[in-house]
């Protein structure tokens, strides 16, 4: 396969297809993943080609999806579960944090549950409530789970396959409002799954983002460059475990750091990252690590989400504030 331009959605589909082809134990399960191809069409055409024994429409019960996937994983399968929307993962929360996350530890390594839980997350699509949430901190807080978020077609394609072949149980966040953004995908590229990535070099401040906010951070960097300020942008990619060494290196150079995420700020990932950077880079910092996040409110009605979601201007404003310290 040659490198080609794909959307994030199509790249995920291609990655899932390749995973199904290369291992007969890989299964896809979820609501509407079969004929419909999922509400976002990420599994489009997969049931047609792999059969309903491998791409399974399930009853409408999230705890059931995750709980039965655990049994299948114990039996030697590699289930990839689709949770239709972020806000519907909570009925399965118990199975994920109490069972998926702990089987390996509890069994002293004798029971693996090599499964992937795909969650389209984040807002910006004008949806009704429960369709725009960013629940990643709940999972990143739980030992035994690994949590990642893709933000580009290349990562979507590569990371979904890496997650499926991994024996670690992985919560896989997909930036639903970016599903249609296009980019180059090289099918032969290899790189580690749990590594952050510098997506734009810069010298004046470090901006951290993941998932849907990577695009926003890059746009902010483009705008800042017009004003003569060079922002270094990182895509965290892995939310648990965090890969902060390259970020410490960057912050030591720039002396300034802004963390961007859509999730509310209270006890969010930004808080953890700010604390860690403070511990590691204290003498290099010119200003405290600032956070640009969703507010500590429930996700608002669609007509208000523009106010809720961090945008380019809020990122730039935070960068400005780090210069005013």
């Amino acid at each position, binding site marked *: 396969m040659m490198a080609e331009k794909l959307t994030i959605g199509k790249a995920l589909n291609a990655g899932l297809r390749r995973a199904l082809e290369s291992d007969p134990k890989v299964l896809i399960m979820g609501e509407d993943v079969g004929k419909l191809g999922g509400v976002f069409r990420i599994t489009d055409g997969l049931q047609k080609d792999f059969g309903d024994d491998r791409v399974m429409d399930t009853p409408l019960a999230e705890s059931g999806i995750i709980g039965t996937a655990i*049994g*299948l994983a114990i039996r030697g399968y590699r289930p990839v579960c689709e949770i239709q929307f972020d806000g519907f993962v909570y009925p399965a929360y118990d199975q994920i944090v109490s069972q998926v996350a702990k089987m390996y*530890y509890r069994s002293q390594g004798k029971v693996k549950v090599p499964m992937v839980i795909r969650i389209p997350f984040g807002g910006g699509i004008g949806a009704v409530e429960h369709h725009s949430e960013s629940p990643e901190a709940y999972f990143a807080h739980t030992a035994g789970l690994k949590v990642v978020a893709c933000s580009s077609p290349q990562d979507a394609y590569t990371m979904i396959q890496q997650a499926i072949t991994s024996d670690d149980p992985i919560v896989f966040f997909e930036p639903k409002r970016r599903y249609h953004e296009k980019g180059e995908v090289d099918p032969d590229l290899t790189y580690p799954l749990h590594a952050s990535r510098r997506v734009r070099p810069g010298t004046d401040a470090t901006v951290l983002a993941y998932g849907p906010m990577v695009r926003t951070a890059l746009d902010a960097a483009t705008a800042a460059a017009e004003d003569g300020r060079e922002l270094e942008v990182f895509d965290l990619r892995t939310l648990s475990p965090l890969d902060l060494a390259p970020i410490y290196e960057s912050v030591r150079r720039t002396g300034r750091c802004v963390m961007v995420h859509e999730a509310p700020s209270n006890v969010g990932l930004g808080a953890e990252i700010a604390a860690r950077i403070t511990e590691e880079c204290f003498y290099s910092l010119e200003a405290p690590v600032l956070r640009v996040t969703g507010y500590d409110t429930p996700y608002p009605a669609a007509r208000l989400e523009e106010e809720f979601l961090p945008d380019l201007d809020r990122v730039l404003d935070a960068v400005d504030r780090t210069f005013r310290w």
Partner: protein
Amino acid sequence: MAKQAAGEPAPDFVQLLTPDGERIERATGADGVEYSVDFTDEEYRGLYRDLVVIRKLDAEATALQRQGELGIWASLLGQEAAQVGSGRALRTQDMAFPTYREHGVLYCRGIDPILPLSLFRGVDQGAWDPNEVRVNMYTIVIGAQTLHATGYAMGITKDGKVGGDDGEAVLCYFGDGATSQGDVNEAFIWASVFHSPIVFFCQNNQYAISEPIEKQTRIPLYRRADGFGFPGLRVDGNDVLATYAVTRTALDNARHGQGPTLIEAYTYRMGAHTTTDDPTRYRIASEVEAWQAKDPIARVRAFVEKQQIADAAFFDEVDEQAKREALHLRERVLAMPDPQPLTLFDNVYPHGSPEIDAQRERFAEYLDSFEGSAH
């Protein structure tokens, strides 16, 4: 149907051995199927032996808890027949998914009784190898394992291991309280629509800690199966013969591709829920006495005595064996070492994690900072 109350007689169950030790040749279940067993004298004696030994081991574990050697213990007292009857019905290739009380099932699987004790002592979290012993680890979250069992059974179907005598089946245990959990109901739906080779085995011991069965249901539990589209039946859970007969049939049906069954084993938890519980706060002595008259062991003894298939020497020898095994268990519990501190960080992730590695390193340095430490 009228609501049922704890201790009320349950006429609609399969019984093959009365509390007085009378053998009933055959009995029809609520599923319309006729059940019977055909055991040799040796097998009857074997069942009696199982029941006596696991009761003794259970009593020993309770004593160990009282002496501070176990953090807590969930006793199976009164539920021996339900566990031995169902456990003995398993075939080698089958897989069982237990709760935290199925010590008798483990015993029937030939599993060293020390294994669950490390869980209750706090040495590990019940880390036997389910693939090796073919009983999954104990599950503490009520009902969670019913979904794991169902998924596992779906995997059996995918592997093409149903449809014949050598097929595999899953036996999934849970309590009466668990039937109120969403997961159990979801498991019923999955098992039904995927036609999975699974037997749901509910030990209705009449209480969920202090809550009597009428706090969970207004109809007999086995009738729940109706609404999910598979057969359900109730068995006298204090009758090891009947429990064996219905479980064996249900497992055979499952392995032959006939889908799930719900078995409600109607029984009684004679002791406390766990050693931290005080049952005198929520149940009366006369209720316990009424159930004592239905004791699962006494009736097998009465039967084998009447049939003259066991003599005094046999009973003495079984008691001796039980004592010996209990003593052996006690010695091994007392000798069980605490885990090493750094093992705290073991097995969090199959592929490891740099954060855990860093924390382990820092903890090791911290431990080393104490003089004379040798962790």
